[in-house]
């Protein structure tokens, strides 16, 4: 194809303004893609699990811990839920052992969510657990469009960050965490359901551990 031919065709649809990402957004998306390709699907997240990391964040006034942490033997909280100044919550899981305690803590904070921990080689049955999951565009805070699951968390504090305001009255947040053999969380899947959410019965699986399988809503 010669340039004359191309120019003639281009003249039929004179798309003069080249759509171009702002540099900052380009950088952001590059960092996202590079982080994803460097991340194995089951990423051990040990760096998130040192309680010592929590203390400096609190000292800086970034977050105020309001969740009731559950303690396991050693005195280290199994998990903590912190409320950030912007209304988002940061969930830190040190020992992924009792999802229903975390669920109860969230409910105590007014967050209607179900929480499940999925060990390696398992998945929830049934999947999908709801016939009325929201699309990604819908699962967000109606005021500012912030997504239900904020990733990366963009806070000094390690953990998983969610915006509870994305869950509207009558809806249920669903949080599934994949868990490694040493009870550390490796990944999260989060969505919001309009209707009821089936309880998670763990079954053996060699598929992706979290969320509905690909193609479930075809």
């Amino acid at each position, binding site marked *: 194809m010669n340039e004359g031919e191309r120019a003639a*065709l281009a003249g*039929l649809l004179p798309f003069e303004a080249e759509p171009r990402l702002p540099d900052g957004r380009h950088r952001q*998306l590059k960092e*996202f893609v590079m982080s994803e*390709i460097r991340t194995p699907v089951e990423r051990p997240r040990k760096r998130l699990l040192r309680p010592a990391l929590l203390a400096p964040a609190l000292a800086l006034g970034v977050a105020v811990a309001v969740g009731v942490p559950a303690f396991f033997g050693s005195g280290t909280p199994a998990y903590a839920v912190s409320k950030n100044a912007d209304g988002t919550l940061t969930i830190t899981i040190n020992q992924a052992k009792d999802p229903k305690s975390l669920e109860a803590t969230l409910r105590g904070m007014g967050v209607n969510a179900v929480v499940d921990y999925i060990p390696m080689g398992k998945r929830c049955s049934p999947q999908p657990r709801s016939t009325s999951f929201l699309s990604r565009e819908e699962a967000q805070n109606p005021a500012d469009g*912030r997504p239900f699951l904020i990733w990366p968390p963009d806070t000094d504090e390690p953990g998983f960050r969610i915006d509870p305001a994305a869950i509207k009255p009558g809806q249920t947040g669903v949080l599934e965490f994949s868990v490694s053999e040493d009870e550390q969380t490796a990944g999260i899947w989060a969505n919001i359901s309009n209707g009821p959410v089936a309880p998670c019965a763990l079954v053996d699986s060699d598929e992706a551990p*979290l969320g509905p399988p690909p193609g479930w809503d075809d």
Partner: protein
Amino acid sequence: MDMSLRARMRDGDAGAFEALFEEMARPVFSHAFRLTGDWSAAEDVLSLTFLEAWRLRHRIDPDGGSLRPWVLGIATNVARNLRRAARRYADALARMPRGHPIPDFTDDIIGRIDAAEQLAAIRQAYGSLRRQEQEVFALCVWSGLDHAEAAQALGVAVGTVRSRLSRARKKLEKLAAERQQDPGWRQVKGDHRFVREENR
């Protein structure tokens, strides 16, 4: 793009992948925006294209030429099947930082508003083409691939690219002629809506 970068990419070298992103992110975004007509969808296509490129890197022939047709071919497929691609990478997309219309990009936003009216008219004409014609047009005319590269990108014969492009050209020329004759109300073909063309 040199051969070694191709081979390194195939071998899963993250540095080579980063170089590919730097080289191709801009053309991929432009291509995606023109195919989807939607800024946010184009950002999704951009990210998903590179996640797909990484997943499919073993398919790269280490001795080929530029990876541009290959990457733009992936972008075309992703844009065509965005919902399917989004499901495959649902977990990753949930982690993707969302764009915010914050005033850091004021100049850019003003530029986009200026371009919006022009864009609407072009999209009307572009939307009158069949999807396969749109893809060939975008690859050959806007992304600058030659017939053979577009054929490689789409996985079709070179003759197919030529005939799709030729059909697209005839339709657009006919549309341009019609527009000159009737600058008022008109029906956009294949779109069953009546669209008001403003007289300027």
